[in-house]
């Protein structure tokens, strides 16, 4: 069973601020982490490998420093890391990204299972997983919250819905995107950390994956960002304190002006 997991390095949401003048994310001094959803995808891939055998390859498109998330995934049990990196990929939107990842996966061989996080917490589009599946000509299921069964021939998974979940039986090849309820990611192991430190990360350039230059990076990205702005705050909040009686009193005072 060969599994590929697409992961992304993102700024740690705890540290991110919006520059009030330019309305862009100010990433200065911000820690980079593995996209939280992707951590769950890696964990599930490792669990499936532990029960069915095979190999787990983690794949990321990003600048050279994105290698760090590949090593992190290896320290948590993944077997190989592949970095897709080239200046020509810069500025890619989800369309160009899914094309690039699909080209990289085609170069790497065949995989029964492709896992992605539901979305990356920096862009929050949730488009790359489904887009990649279309490019790979694979069926896909999004928002997996539980793997009920995984065998050599297929899986039974639960897809999270607003009002419950669907139970879906899939056969390979298939692409799944996952949500955080799926599992609890493990802490890196000592052996894994040592392996990760020594691991040779394979790097693929635009030429390596035979990508058409018109389809990658900024030029391959039809999405144009017109404006970025912080949404209007949803009105003021205030916390009442004191004993229950005191709080009720304060609440009545606040509500009175609105009463007929």
């Amino acid at each position, binding site marked *: 069973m060969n599994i590929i997991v697409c992961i992304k390095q993102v700024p740690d949401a705890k540290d991110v601020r919006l520059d009030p003048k330019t309305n862009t994310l100010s990433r200065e001094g911000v820690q980079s982490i593995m996209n939280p959803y992707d951590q769950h995808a890696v964990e599930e891939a490792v669990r499936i490998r532990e029960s069915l055998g095979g190999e787990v390859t983690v794949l990321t498109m990003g600048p050279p420093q994105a290698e760090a998330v590949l090593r992190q995934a290896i320290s948590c049990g993944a077997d190989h890391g592949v970095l897709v990196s080239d200046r020509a990929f810069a500025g890619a939107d989800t369309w160009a990204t899914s094309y690039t990842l699909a080209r990289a996966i085609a170069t790497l061989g065949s995989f029964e299972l492709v896992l992605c996080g539901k979305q990356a917490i920096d862009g929050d589009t949730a488009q790359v997983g489904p887009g990649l599946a279309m490019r790979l000509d694979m069926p896909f299921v999004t928002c997996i919250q539980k793997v009920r069964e995984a065998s050599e021939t297929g899986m039974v998974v639960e897809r999270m819905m607003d009002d419950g979940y669907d139970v879906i039986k899939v056969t390979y090849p298939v692409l799944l995107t996952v949500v955080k309820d799926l599992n609890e990611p493990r802490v890196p192991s*000592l052996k894994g950390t040592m392996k990760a430190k020594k691991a040779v990360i394979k790097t693929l350039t635009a030429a390596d994956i035979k990508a058409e230059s018109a389809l990658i990076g900024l030029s391959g990205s039809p999405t144009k960002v017109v404006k970025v702005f912080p949404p209007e705050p949803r009105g003021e909040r205030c916390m009442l304190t004191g004993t229950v009686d005191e709080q009720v009193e304060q609440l009545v005072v606040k509500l009175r002006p609105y009463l007929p």
Partner: protein
Amino acid sequence: MDYFLSEEQQMIVDIARQITDEKIVPLRAELDEKHQFPREILNDIARADLFGVPIPEEFGGFGGGCFDIVLALEQFGRGCIGVGTAFAASSLGIYPILISGSDEQKKEYLPDVATGKRFAAFGLTEANAGSDASGIQTTAVLDGDEWVLNGTKQWITNGGEAQIYTVVAMTDRSKGARGASMFIVEEGDPGFTCGHKEKKMGIRASSTTELIFKDCRIPSDRIIGRRGTGFITVMKTLDSSRPGIAALAVGLAQGALDEAASYAKQRVQFGKPIVAFQAVQHMLADMAIGIEAARSLVYGAAKHIDAHKGDMSKVSSMCKVFATDVAMKVTTDAVQVMGGYGYMCEYPVEKMMRDAKILQIYEGTNQIQRNVVGQELNKEYARLK
């Protein structure tokens, strides 16, 4: 302070820190309240390979020394020494096999302990044998090709949770201390049961029970080392493990200082954060000084033990006494800095203070450790004359 850790040592610290922050800290209050054994957390620790730290590579471990295990225990101690004790007691339980066991015994037990598949426990103490271990009454008699054990051990950490128990029993009472031997008893051996779980002041996440042997029969090859060498193995075991208890103490004290110092910055009285009052600042300063001194001594002792296996009693006892006394003082002062809030269960320092007390008692009371240091000094100065 920078202790110039190697890259591998830093890995151990980072992994143990992550487990502590993500798995132990969020659960510790609940484990304490429910007297609940932290099985899931121990599984996390096992998956991170940390049970393998003291086990040689040929038996599936990391091949680390005393210093490596100290680094992990310090982190766990910062989160919860109940969890830390459960982890440490499993190492304690296999030290006799590591120190005096046969190759077959090492092959049989160490790989499972390294991967966390089986836990271990160490059974020495009895109702009438605490500090004075020579008072033990559990006996082992050879009957054909089986040993038959009779007696009751008390207050054994990981009792009822472990699968491997290393226990001390008298094989020849007439020989006194030279008549004790160590044995490996497995969960499920006929005639072996664990008694009720004790209710305790602190370290409630750890399980403490009796071990009851009623005509318990085990194969003759379960004796550890030669007959009559039980106490030698016990002494070496405790000398090797005490720096681990000292490390739990350093971690616990650090955790208490972290709580107290951040509270002191927020709490405003008389129009100022209380950290601005010199009385509070000096308490925090003394806490920090004691912790750093303890940490330096524990690290130094652990490195000494790794380099000089034959000469460890004194440094092992010194670091245990010093670090655990610091932990008791620091946790008590942490409650003081936080005032009434520190006394409330909503804040973690009251648990830390309750937990700290055991560190001065188990693995040899601090009085007994001072005896050891004193006796060693006596020997050293006799040689000088």
